[in-house]
């Protein structure tokens, strides 16, 4: 991981508590010869340990914004500091290394490897670290315990319920101890009970483990689990609605 390190403080805008700092972010897509402006001049900060919900109608650009912050897409213009690293400056390989160490992902449809067990799915990101096999096992067992799936470690995703699969995905997201976890509609495919469990788990990740979480959701009730809500509409971001 040879990412050029640029501390938030050096950027002139951040403070020690700021984990994500976006400045003048623009993003557009080409569709059928037309340029579609998705994000226009987005600037905001997310504090370390903050649980932020991003809401907005379909096509408002919230998933795009999440992808940019997570380093799986790049803006057309602007500066994006995540934990002191300007990810816009990173090449593809550097960005992959950076993601492995700094970002955990939670997807709507879990995106687990169907041929790997729960244990192996959670272990997967750890194989990109320098941990020994024994250390990896200890980490995974602890993570499984935290998400309440110790008795399911040998189960394949097809043998787990949606809620259980999402808990495995959450364990996979925090197993490398990233500062930032991004979640795209994490409860979108779950029933009310399972969604509640998942949101509670995410809350504890932010509250107890100090993870910074950015969650995209349509569901106001789910968003209310967060510390703050921001609305994105027609590529523009509203003021932060502080809940806690």
């Amino acid at each position: 991981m040879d990412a050029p390190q640029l501390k938030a403080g050096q950027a002139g805008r951040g403070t020690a508590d700021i984990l994500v700092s976006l400045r003048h972010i623009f993003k557009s897509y080409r569709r059928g010869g037309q340029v579609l402006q998705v994000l226009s001049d987005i600037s905001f900060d997310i504090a370390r340990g903050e649980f932020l919900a991003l809401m907005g109608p379909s096509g408002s650009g919230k998933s795009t914004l999440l992808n940019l912050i997570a380093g799986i897409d790049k803006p057309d213009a602007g500066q994006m500091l995540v934990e002191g690293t300007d990810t816009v400056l990173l090449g593809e390989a550097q960005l992959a290394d950076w993601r492995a160490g700094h970002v955990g992902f939670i997807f709507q449809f879990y995106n687990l490897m169907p041929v790997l067990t729960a244990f192996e799915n959670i272990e997967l990101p750890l194989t990109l670290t320098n941990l020994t096999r024994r250390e990896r096992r200890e980490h995974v067992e602890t993570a499984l315990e935290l998400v309440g799936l110790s008795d399911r470690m040998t189960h394949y995703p097809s043998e787990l319920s949606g809620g259980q699969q999402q808990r495995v995905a959450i364990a996979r997201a925090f197993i490398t101890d990233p500062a930032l976890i991004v979640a795209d509609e994490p409860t979108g495919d779950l029933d009310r009970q399972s969604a509640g469990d998942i949101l509670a788990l995410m809350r504890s990740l932010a509250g107890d483990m100090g993870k910074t979480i950015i969650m995209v959701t349509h569901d106001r009730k789910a968003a209310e689990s967060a510390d703050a809500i921001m609305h994105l509409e027609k590529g523009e971001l509203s003021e932060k609605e502080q809940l806690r």
Partner: protein
Amino acid sequence: MRRHERTDMNAIKLILRNALRHRLRTALTVTGLLVAVLAYGLLQTVVGAWYAGAASSSNARLVMRNAVSLAFTLPISYENRIRGVEGVSRVAHSNWFGGIYQEPKNFFPQFAVSDNYLSLYPEFILPEEQRAAYMRDRKGALIGRQLADQYGFKVGDALPLRGTIYPGTWEFVVRGIFDAGDETRVTRLMLFHWDYLNETLVRSAPNRANQVGVYVIGVENPDNTAVVSLAADGVFSNSLAETLTETEQAFQLGFVAMSNQIIAAIRIVSYVVILIIMAVMANTMAMSARERTSEYATLKALGFGPGFVALLIFGESLAICVIGGGLGLLATPPAAAVFKTVSGGIFPVFVVSGETALLQAACALAVGVLAAIVPALRASRVRVVDGLRAIA
């Protein structure tokens, strides 16, 4: 354990499990590969069998025939003059007999040969007592091991042949069975005394007597075959029966050349089979990779590089090809044995060569690599955000 070694272990685990994910699809692809590699091996062996006679022929022996055609003979009187050519060590002669054993379908080569014929073929191994018994019996015959095995001939058996080129019924007695030094040499043939043939012709068809089909010439120095050939042909230039002398291998290849187009067709078919399975394999890998686009994107999102994704696809393709190709390789020798049996002795030497086995393995690996190139490139190049949106 270093990081890349762990990711390699992960890759192996994912490759093997992915390969077995759609068991029916994998089983069908493996079966296709097995059949293709087997068919390729058998067809290459057929080509090899075609050349078996030529391949086991010697470059140190020369064959002299009538320059006009093999259908025309040479006088026996040439023999002493050939012996006088510088560089010639031995001279023997033979006539193609072309007799029928019981039924026309029981075809095998028969040659009326001079008594010193076997001295030019040290690769044929004949027990001394059988050689002596053969020499004592005017109607004696020597049978090659492959021929003896095919018809169950034993020493002492009567062997009647119905002549076609030389009409009448010809009685022979098996006096010896000779082996060859190695299994690639053709021993599906019968030798008998030229004198028996000639003496009979002297009585029944005197104008055909004292004629020789070919002379087999041993040379003192194998490096001088070209010089000796020219010198021998020079002796008989401007005679009534001009000669054409060439190495035994060239002589045999002349026969094979008559079937060149058939052999070329067999060769082409063998490679077409491989091309077909390559297309099938490429389709299988493209389908698999397309179905897993979102998984590959997830891996990339987690920090795995495009090389890892490409490795998964190449690995899976190679794993399937190694299994299918390996089974095809293993199945080839027994299939060749069955083929040899059911082909009724058309190919006395039908052995899967090491070269054929290597070609089979190379074809299987080539299929594995080539079939994975496009899917691997596509999957490794797909943007994470696009891949995550993909629906299998």
